[in-house]
């Protein structure tokens, strides 16, 4: 897509971004700032420590574990073991919508549970208080599951949340209690927490209920957190085409669905970064292949539905998918045709998450907009360069601390849904079976890719490129808008959405049109500032001379 302005020389931009840094910092940052070539993908340094003092977008392991992966499941009581803040900040702030089937069904998402550790618990240990808290939660709510999340001090003082959980689980008999060692200092970002969460969910939840699930085409939706109702829209489409959603990991999900998820025949992965471990582990243990899909963007949604139908290899399903696409597309087309003249040729930058900076490029493409620079907050090299780089990724000290579960095929439940030959044939048809080609293959030559963008770099990039829209999170939102550029939050969607599927695409087109063409951006300067006489004296003088 042609941009409406000259794109700056990326190698010069790169130099400018690192110029101000102390030498050691500059050397390190230089490896995370690369000029894209979709033909020969360059290596991006990713998933490494942020230099202390750098204003980073990143959060912590706890945020990735409790906030991202476990947070959206409505019927678990998630108790945060630690001082009060960690639980407070992760309380309802991620917009994980959920819809209990009846008024009687459990929903703990609006609640915040904490052991509120005090100094004496740090000095003398907090396990006793934790067990009291678990007992009180059980007595008050009788939930199916209670999950415990460790915050920074817990690991340091040696509280054993796993032992406490086991003890309480045995005591209750009818409540699954399990813990996560997701202390904030583990790893280098939220990403460590995703991995820890995957391990825990796999160990303690998946496979507990062997009741065969019903339906002909059964799949799990992995890495979809129902922010702004994204999962609702995907559920709507699945229902329309006749696909059975066994479990979602974890938007709008329940404990029961996750426990039964190994009875599905396919795992489709949206957010590769946060949940790919689950896909691999379920494949090894139960023989369920996983496939990368993307429901962000109308064309991507259609493509993903076709891939799913191809996987199941059923002509009726394929026909149904085509019928649904044909039915949904005109509504989308009508909107985009109206909007496109106003968005075409504009430029975007996306610095967010571990998948979104990739997925949302599809929507910008549909709007005729070019992504001139993009990067992730907490992704790994494979999310940039594709999974074929996995064997080449060096495991450093920070990654080594995150447990890799040793998974083997389940002696009874392992049942390969497809033979190796069938999978190979599907891959040849372009299905990303157990694979992901990453963000960079899709980006234009000479676009800029920056991992773990710092505040300083973001301001520089905006000054140099003057994009029409910048996509990031809440911490960046008002900084960028103060510079006169609209910022679309791609964690919280600025409290809008959904942005998935066909209806989501329409929502996104309208939101971006509204944002980039809002008259307010032209009202920032006062008339007297535009006239170049800051004190208004010129105006007064003209009256005087009349």
């Amino acid at each position, binding site marked *: 897509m042609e941009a409406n302005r000259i794109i700056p020389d990326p190698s010069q931009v790169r130099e400018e971004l690192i110029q101000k840094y102390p030498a050691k910092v500059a050397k390190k940052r230089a490896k995370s700032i690369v000029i894209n070539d979709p033909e020969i993908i360059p290596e991006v340094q990713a998933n490494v*420590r942020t230099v202390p003092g750098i204003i980073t977008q990143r959060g912590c392991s706890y945020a990735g574990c409790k906030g991202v992966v476990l947070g959206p499941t409505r019927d678990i009581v998630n108790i945060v073991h630690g001082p009060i803040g960690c639980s407070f900040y992760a309380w309802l702030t991620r917009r994980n919508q959920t819809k209990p089937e009846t008024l009687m069904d459990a929903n703990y998402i609006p609640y915040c549970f904490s052991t509120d550790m005090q100094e004496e618990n740090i000095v003398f240990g907090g396990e006793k208080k934790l067990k009291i808290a678990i007992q009180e939660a059980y007595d008050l709510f009788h939930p199916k599951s209670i999950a415990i999340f460790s915050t920074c001090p817990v690991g340091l003082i040696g509280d054993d949340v796993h032992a406490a959980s086991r003890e309480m689980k045995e005591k209750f008999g009818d409540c699954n209690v399990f813990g996560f060692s997701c202390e904030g200092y583990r790893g280098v970002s939220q990403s460590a927490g995703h991995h820890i969460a995957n391990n825990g969910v796999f160990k303690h939840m998946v496979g507990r209920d062997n009741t065969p699930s019903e339906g002909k085409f059964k799949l799990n939706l992995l890495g979809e957190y129902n922010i702004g109702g994204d999962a609702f829209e995907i559920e709507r489409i699945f229902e329309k085409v006749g696909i059975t959603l066994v479990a979602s990991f974890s938007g709008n999900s329940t404990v029961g669905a996750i426990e039964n998820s190994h009875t599905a025949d396919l795992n489709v992965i949206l957010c590769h970064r946060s949940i790919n471990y689950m896909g691999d582990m379920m494949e090894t243990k139960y023989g369920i292949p996983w496939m990368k899909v993307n429901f962000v963007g109308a064309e991507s949604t259609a493509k993903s539905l076709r891939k799913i139908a191809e996987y199941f290899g059923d002509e009726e399903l394929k026909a149904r998918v085509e019928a649904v696409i044909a039915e949904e597309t005109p509504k989308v087309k009508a909107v985009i045709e109206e909007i496109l003249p106003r968005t075409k040729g504009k430029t975007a930058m996306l610095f967010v998450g571990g998948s979104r900076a990739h997925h949302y490029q599809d929507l910008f493409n549909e709007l005729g907009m070019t992504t001139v620079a993009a990067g992730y907050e907490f992704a790994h090299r494979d999310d940039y360069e594709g999974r074929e780089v996995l064997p080449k990724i060096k495991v450093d000290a920070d990654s080594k601390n995150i447990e890799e579960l040793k998974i083997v095929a389940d002696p009874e439940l392992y049942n390969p849904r497809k033979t190796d030959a069938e999978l190979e044939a599907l891959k040849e048809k372009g299905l990303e079976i157990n694979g992901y080609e990453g963000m960079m293959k899709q980006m234009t030559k000479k676009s800029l890719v920056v991992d773990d963008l710092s505040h300083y770099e973001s301001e520089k990039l905006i000054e140099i490129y003057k994009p029409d829209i910048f996509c990031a999170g809440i911490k960046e939102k008002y900084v960028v808008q103060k510079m006169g550029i609209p910022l679309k939050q791609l964690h919280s969607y600025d409290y809008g959405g959904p942005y998935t599927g066909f209806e989501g695409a329409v929502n996104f087109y309208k939101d971006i049109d509204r944002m980039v063409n809002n008259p307010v951006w032209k009202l920032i300067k006062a008339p007297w500032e535009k006239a170049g006489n800051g004190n208004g004296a010129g105006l007064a003088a003209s009256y005087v001379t009349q």
Partner: protein
Amino acid sequence: MLLRHTSKEVKEREGLTINPAKTCQPIGAMYAALGIHGCLPHSHGSQGCCSYHRSTLTRHYKEPVMAATSSFTEGASVFGGQANLLAAIDTIFAVYDPDIIAVHSTCLSETIGDDLQQITKKASDDGKIPEGKYVIFASTPSFVGSHVTGYANMVAGIATQFAESTGVKKNQFNIIAGWMEPSDMREIKRMATVMGVNIVLFPDTSDVLDAPQTGKHVFYPKGGTTVTELKSSGDSLVSLALGSISAEPAAIALEKKCKVPFETLDIPIGLSATDRFIMAISKVAGVTVPDEITADRGRLVDVMCDMEQYLHGKRVALFGDPDQILPLTEFLLDLNMKPVHIVSGTPGQRFEKQMRQLLDERSPETNFKSGLQADMFLLHQWMKNEPVDLLFGNTYGKYMARDEDIPFIRFGFPILDRIGHSYFPNVGYSGSLRLLEKILNAVMDRQDRDALEEKFELVM
């Protein structure tokens, strides 16, 4: 029902906090440091703390909130965070060039025993702090106090580390702001100007967290108390601390270091607290209260007289921070309203005593709890047992308000879903008038909504 699992039956809890009416110390320290001109707050802990605090403050103000972090990893957590903080100081001065770095600790750095005084001294000894620049610190472990005490600790840190006494007193006095909004701080300064007195207000987040849209992001906005002002606070005649929990520790520190006497007042929310504030200024500065202030007061009392029928006996539940809900409770009593349930998660006997005293005198039957397990879950249970007509609190209160179908006034921190708090004050007579307008609107909108058609009133 959003809070469908909240039952009427109240059971004592010892281990579990549900829906807390407080958060942790470091966010308060970060907020306080933003009220110093040219200051970059720095969180000495893992990245998540800084990210969460910045996010919460940003959602509350819809403004840029700049702060850096020591980015602890497992290594730093085992071997100590000194290397991280020293590296951070280097990076920050090179890249972000603040005048001051205000470091606060976290539960992580406190648990491993990092000593901020020692590390910042080392930074200074190693020449890492450029000429004319400062690195100050406050100890704010998350397992002690609450966001309010974290604010207090940073403000006390600011006072002790900047104030100097030259031996020559200046014709000025200090106003130490308890936790309040930039709009409140702006109003405090306006009142001082009207009273014709010279003050040093610190911290001061006005013109920092309510910055205008100019098309340019100003990393260090024009507001904030300057280093020169802070230094001179040691020569002030007296300090007025607004809030016994969030401001008084700084006043005590100043008295200790520079022998500046102090008086502690409530944050001037409501009629009586503003009366005491104005009287205190008048007394310490030896000025008569100008007519403009008296007229402001008169307007507030006028509305209180004219609209009393809509207020009297209205039953109120409130949760929030000690220094704010104490004067709010007093105001509600002055309005002839009935505070029925009050909780604050911030622990401390001082507040407990002050609130008890107020309630014993004027509303002994009020349910009140502060500290551990004084949470919104308990408040909600109380509300289910003894219903109220109005709820005050931060944004999280909207879940209870919706479930119980009661009018809700956003008051306190954080307010994540409305604007206004950063622009329109709650302090002083005019701030209190705005608060009163909000109360009346909430109550009267409800009366309109619920009125039978034949009872629907045009004039109220």
